[in-house]
């Protein structure tokens, strides 16, 4: 009995002293957040997260390479604590939302060829696309796949739809779109000219029911003079001038301009 106490006591003392010494001696300058995270982590070093030990994970989280809930044994408590440490005003970053500038789904825009190859917009775009319009949406959903927040989906007609409430304005979809028809706009803007075709009016009319035919009715009707013609063939809204009045949307003969507030009003009344 005495032996046991003595042996363990001595061992404990020796090891404790050693560990304390080591902890003191090898304090390395590290990301303070990493140390904070390390403190919250269980310290079990079980490796279940796939990183070499808790410090490895803490470092990865601090660098943003691992999610806050990567620690399985730590569970919810650790995840919450870590996200608190890592929380860099996530809520405020929603300063913009994505808008898809095309309404040319399969019923609106002419399909001129059949495409068989890598099923992605990038792949189809490489071959010029299967739609007559060389500017419009290809409909394979590269943007939807790129969205890290699940804020987009493909409509039944084959156009990507942005769920405004979920969109954080990160721009991943815009980067993924090979035709550059997704842009980020201030979330309070409701009126958009949903066409990116620089083709002349007659050719647009030939292949798309909802394209901008450069008739300039919107330009003339806008009380704020916010709309101008880009390269003479495509109407464009200057969002800094637009006041959401929606008059242009009512004038547009092809329905290329969309007033979302009007749409939602209709939905409410219907």
């Amino acid at each position, binding site marked *: 009995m005495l032996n046991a106490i003595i042996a363990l006591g001595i061992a404990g003392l020796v090891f404790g002293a050693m560990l304390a010494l080591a902890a003191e001696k090898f304090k390395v300058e590290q990301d303070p957040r990493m140390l904070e995270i390390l403190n919250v982590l*269980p310290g*079990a070093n*079980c490796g279940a997260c796939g990183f070499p030990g808790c410090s490895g994970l803490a470092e990865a989280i601090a660098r943003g390479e691992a999610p806050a809930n990567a620690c*399985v*044994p730590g569970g919810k408590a650790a995840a919450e604590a870590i996200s608190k440490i890592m929380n860099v005003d996530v809520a405020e970053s929603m300063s913009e939302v994505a808008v898809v500038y095309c309404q040319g789904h399969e019923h609106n825009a002419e399909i001129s060829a059949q495409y068989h190859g890598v099923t992605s917009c990038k792949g189809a775009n490489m071959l010029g696309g299967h739609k007559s319009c060389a500017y419009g949406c290809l409909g394979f959903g590269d943007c939807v796949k790129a969205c890290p927040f699940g804020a987009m989906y493909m409509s039944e007609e084959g156009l990507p739809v942005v769920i405004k409430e979920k969109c954080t304005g990160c721009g991943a979809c815009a980067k993924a779109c090979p035709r550059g028809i997704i842009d980020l706009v201030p979330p309070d803007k409701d009126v958009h000219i949903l066409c990116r075709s620089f083709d002349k009016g007659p050719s647009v009319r030939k292949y798309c029911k909802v394209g901008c035919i450069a008739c300039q009715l919107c330009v003339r009707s806008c009380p704020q003079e916010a709309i101008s013609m880009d390269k003479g063939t495509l109407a464009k809204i200057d969002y800094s001038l637009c006041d959401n009045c929606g008059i242009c949307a009512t004038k547009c003969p092809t329905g290329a301009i969309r007033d979302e507030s009007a749409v939602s009003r209709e939905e409410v009344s219907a």
Partner: protein
Amino acid sequence: MKESKSSLGFDFIKGFIQENPTFALAIGMCPTLAVTTSVVNGFWMGIAVLFVLTFANVFVSLLRNFIPDEIRIPIFVILIATPVVIVELVMKAYLPAIYEVLGIFVPLIVVNCIIIARAEAFAYRNPVMNSLMDGLGIGAAFTVNLMIVGGIREFLGTGQIVFGSAAFPSVPFFEPAAVMLTPPGGFITLGILMALFNVTIGAKGKTND
């Protein structure tokens, strides 16, 4: 440290679903695989872990205000190793056959991630009663898990389930598959069970979004 507001009942029951150590958190794999060739082995292993876990949880929780943060891990290890040694000695004395079968996996409870994880993630920041319930709940869930895995492997591997003196009679025309008692059988059984847990219970009670 924020004190948990969860009820004692929840602390007990969560181990079976959201924080099921085997199926949801996938920790403590080694004993789960190694000793589950029969229900009985699983049961005793589970009880051993239950005891150690509860003991460690309670003491960590009791001492949580006196343990310095920097050296908490070594202290946890001591607080865990002590009940493990107790379990070892008790088992050796009263259940020598089981002790022999479980082999080194009894002392290895010391390095079982479940225990240190609970100590750190729960007991270190919760009151004693909650920690007690947490230890009992997780331990009980672990025991049940081991018995389920053990039961499946024992039945498929030997054709019957023996518990104490009772034995379920073998099914006619059923030729037991010895592979279930070997490592491949263990790995595959656990993998499939985990997948089943994922699509059924786990899908409903996800801890983290």
